[in-house]
């Protein structure tokens, strides 16, 4: 199972951060060519990320690049360069409609052909950052088989809504839930927005717990200090793992007996509970806790 608990945001024109991005062990790195790069540095950032992707070894960390919008002067060249460099996924900002995804997919297909990359190998992610995009989230999520995740960008979203962000996240609650539902309906992942106050660890952890409870698979992070906090929230507890192991053992035994109904700890266990248990075991294993494969499958 590919985890996307943490997607570390790295400004694309900062050579020191681009060089060191892998040492913090986020699940994905998102090199940014968009909002963090000044207009007159767009070309330099593109070359910097291109050369880093071609040369540096980021191990098993997923390499994502947030490109500029395709309707501007930089987006198309961003996509061509990053596909040529072998990026794992292109993240499209400010996605409003399914057609935005179809347009970027066309450029990716062209680039894969032109640079001899395996057709279909470049994945897509879409950031949804406005009311229109949220209302179209279902269609966006289904727009391309390359799409592996959709993300909410809350700063632009609350501006679009004529409001501001609150610690409780009341104003983005509906958008978050709609985004998760759209992702689940399409069988892809949902990534939560960044938390800008790097020094507020308590507020950050609270927001991560809320996002996890809503069903998000992970969160975009802007500072390495935020990574272990997200990982801790997403790692199942010892009690959750032990319970999951008991459920899986019971279901295997029931299967051997030819019985479909089981109970564990005095409670009936049905299909969704087994699915949750298996997911917890996968998550635990991927988080570094040894879980034998025969138990996870």
């Amino acid at each position, binding site marked *: 199972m590919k985890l996307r608990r943490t997607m570390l945001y790295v400004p694309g024109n*900062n*050579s*020191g951060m681009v*060089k060191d991005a892998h040492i913090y062990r986020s699940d994905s790195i998102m090199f940014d060519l968009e909002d963090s790069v000044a207009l007159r540095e767009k*070309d*330099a950032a593109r*070359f*910097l990320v*291109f*050369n*880093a992707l*071609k*040369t*540096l070894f980021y191990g098993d960390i997923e390499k994502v690049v947030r490109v500029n919008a395709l309707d501007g002067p930089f987006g198309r*060249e961003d996509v*061509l*360069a990053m596909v*040529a*460099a072998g990026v794992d996924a292109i993240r499209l900002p400010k996605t409003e409609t399914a057609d935005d995804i179809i347009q970027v997919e066309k450029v990716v297909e062209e680039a894969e052909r*032109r*640079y*001899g990359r395996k057709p279909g190998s470049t994945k897509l992610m879409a950031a949804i950052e406005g009311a229109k995009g949220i209302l179209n989230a279902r269609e966006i999520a289904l727009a391309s088989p390359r799409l592996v995740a959709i993300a909410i960008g809350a700063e632009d979203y609350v501006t679009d809504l004529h409001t501001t962000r609150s610690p409780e996240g009341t104003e983005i609650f509906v958008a978050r839930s709609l985004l998760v539902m759209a992702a689940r309906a399409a069988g892809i992942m949902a990534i939560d927005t960044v938390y800008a106050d790097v020094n507020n660890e308590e507020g950050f952890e609270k927001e991560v717990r809320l996002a996890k409870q809503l069903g998000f698979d992970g969160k975009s992070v802007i500072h390495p200090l935020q990574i272990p906090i997200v990982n801790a929230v997403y790692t199942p507890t010892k009690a959750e793992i032990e319970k999951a192991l008991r459920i899986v053992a019971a279901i295997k035994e029931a299967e051997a007996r030819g019985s479909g109904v089981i109970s564990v700890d005095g409670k009936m266990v049905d299909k969704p509970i087994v699915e949750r248990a298996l997911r917890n075991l996968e998550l635990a294993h991927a988080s570094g806790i040894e879980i034998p494969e025969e138990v996870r499958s």
Partner: protein
Amino acid sequence: MRITKTAAAGTLESSDVLITVEPASGGGLQIDIEGATAARFGKQIRAVVAETLAGFGVTDCAVRLQDKGALDCTIRARLSAALLRAGDETGSVAWEALK
């Protein structure tokens, strides 16, 4: 590519390099390296610069590097950006041809 004007790319931040290129007016290639790394890594930096210039077909220009400990891939990136800014070519980059 022909270098027609002076242009720079990069920064003086740690792990970066500020590269300035300018027309050499028929003087061929001139490469100047400044910074603490010049003595130890000068030869390697020169090789990366020469290779990148050759990749863009540049045979006549002066290159000045103010190095702050940039990796080879950063030098290539900053030089590429500086050349494109200083050169007479516009349009899409031949990404497949770049190392």
